[in-house]
């Protein structure tokens, strides 16, 4: 993403080599108390303190936090500014504008230039396919993931309009990484939803224990880079590994994976193909029973309504009675795991910085035998858990993936068959 400085100074295009890239890290924290969820206020405060105290200031990184708690919004440019309350009388924070304002403020303040790297982290509880739930008069409201993509889309358009000298007529800014320090977000649905807005999705297939990512450790390398500043693919992999190593020491089950959103359209097509092939054969009662059970064999831990996609594909390849299903499963499974050499020629950018040669699941880190069947990305499957799919379907059906593929209808049909 690019801001005023780039426009006025005519900074270089990404990777041209005449500037050292900087990172702009933006952490959007939702810590309002919600009945049934653990309070996040203390963890949020601890995280902000960690950012301020455990990481030494560095020119190569700008860190911004925005905390939503107790009905207030506060912002800070870590190290370089005090934490201040947002005047809600002056700044509209409804309908996702709190996020777009935050992004805009962070980009301007850091004087983000073309070629610099950016990461947005959504921190907080997830709630029915949304993040950052708040208690309102008429119930609990969260920024659901479909709304999140609307908000990101609005930001892209506004930002591109604001800097017309930087972006061409069809160009819009993109984040390098969008991360979720939140539960159950590494899904095919999210990858397809966020593909227009970021290069990589960094998220977990399972729950994220409090206090979440160890920011001091994961951003420590950026504070004091030994050599070049890490590129997006390198930082994402590093975060995933350090996160899992951190909790291994504390004996907590965790996973974190990074997905290459640039290839999400192919993922969409292959998942739709598998959904169709399954739909076409499930009126065979024997096959129905086999597939129904394979969903259970592939489910993620903790009674969550998700299956691991690669594991499911492998199970179908082994046990489905239909070649068309086995073929579709193989194609999808290969896509997730097979390295993608691609064409890449640049003297200015290290191939590893931008993930050249990596598969769609760029990184998959996990820390225990419980998570051995998790390969980095999940799909919604309500029948594998004790889950109110009818209530969740209001939110789930907002996903572009649910609307445009048959997967949602297929798995809801399976849930209704219980």
């Amino acid at each position, binding site marked *: 993403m690019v801001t005023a400085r780039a426009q006025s100074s005519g900074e270089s295009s990404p990777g041209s080599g005449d500037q050292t890239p900087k990172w702009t890290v933006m952490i959007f924290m939702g810590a309002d108390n919600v009945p049934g969820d653990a309070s996040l206020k203390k963890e949020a405060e601890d995280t902000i303190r960690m950012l301020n105290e455990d990481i030494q200031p560095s020119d190569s990184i700008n860190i911004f936090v925005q905390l939503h708690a107790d009905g207030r919004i506060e912002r800070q440019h870590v190290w370089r500014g005090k934490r201040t309350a947002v005047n809600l009388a002056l700044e509209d924070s409804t309908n996702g504008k709190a996020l777009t304002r935050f992004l805009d403020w962070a980009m301007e303040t850091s004087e983000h230039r073309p070629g610099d790297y950016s990461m947005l982290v959504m921190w907080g509880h997830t709630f029915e396919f949304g993040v950052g739930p708040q208690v309102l008069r008429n119930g609990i409201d969260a920024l659901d993931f479909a709304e999140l993509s609307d908000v990101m889309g609005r930001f892209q358009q506004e930002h591109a309009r604001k800097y017309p000298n930087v972006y061409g007529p069809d160009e819009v800014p993109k984040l390098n990484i969008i991360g979720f320090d939140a539960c159950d977000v590494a899904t095919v649905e999210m990858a397809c939803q966020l593909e227009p807005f970021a290069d990589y999705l960094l998220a977990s297939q399972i729950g994220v224990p409090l206090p979440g990512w160890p920011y001091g450790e994961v951003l420590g390398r950026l504070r004091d880079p030994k050599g070049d500043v890490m590129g997006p693919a390198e930082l994402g992999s590093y975060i995933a590994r350090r996160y899992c190593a951190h909790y291994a020491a504390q004996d907590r089950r965790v996973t974190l994976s990074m997905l290459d959103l640039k290839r999400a359209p192919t993922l969409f097509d292959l998942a739709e193909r598998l*959904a*169709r*092939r399954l*739909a*076409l*054969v*499930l*009126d*065979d*009662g*024997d*096959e*129905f*029973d086999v597939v*129904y059970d394979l969903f259970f064999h592939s489910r993620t831990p903790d009674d969550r309504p998700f299956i691991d996609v690669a594991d499911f594909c492998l199970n179908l390849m082994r046990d489905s*009675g*239909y*070649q*068309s299903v086995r*073929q579709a499963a193989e194609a999808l499974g290969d896509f997730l795991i097979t390295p993608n050499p691609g064409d890449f020629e640049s003297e200015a950018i290290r191939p590893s910085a931008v993930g050249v040669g990596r598969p769609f699941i760029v990184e998959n880190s996990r820390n225990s035998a419980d998570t051995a069947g998790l390969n980095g990305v999940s799909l919604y499957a309500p029948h594998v858990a004790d889950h109110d799919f009818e209530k969740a379907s209001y939110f789930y059906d907002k996903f572009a993936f649910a609307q445009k593929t*048959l997967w949602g*209808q*297929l798995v*809801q*049909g*399976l849930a*209704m*068959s219980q």
Partner: protein
Amino acid sequence: MPLDDPKDIDRFAKDIDRFSKDIDRLLKEIDRGPKDIDRASGAIVEDVFRQVTGLNGFLVVSFVAPVAGSQSLNGRRAAKNPMMATVARKAEAREQEDAVQNPVDPDTLRQLLKTLPEFLKYLEQKAKPKA
């Protein structure tokens, strides 16, 4: 899409190999007994046709009998749920739409058609009750 590309030929050979495995599977199903013959042959023949005609990613669903509403299958839990039949019909419609948009290459089709009578004859012979 003529099969002059080595990758296509390789793919074709692979499909033939899988095709023959499916025939083996069909024979095993038939061997299970008369009760399962219809279900097994119906389902597997449909599947075999789908994949043979789906070489190189092109699917010719016009060869495939409609799946939804097929009386030869004895769905268990699936039969209780009309939503599954609806999803199957939608899948069929989408496949047909794709087939129209991505018609199979005539050369490939010609090769497939050549194998079809032989395949049907083979099935008929195997399905006959043993004397």
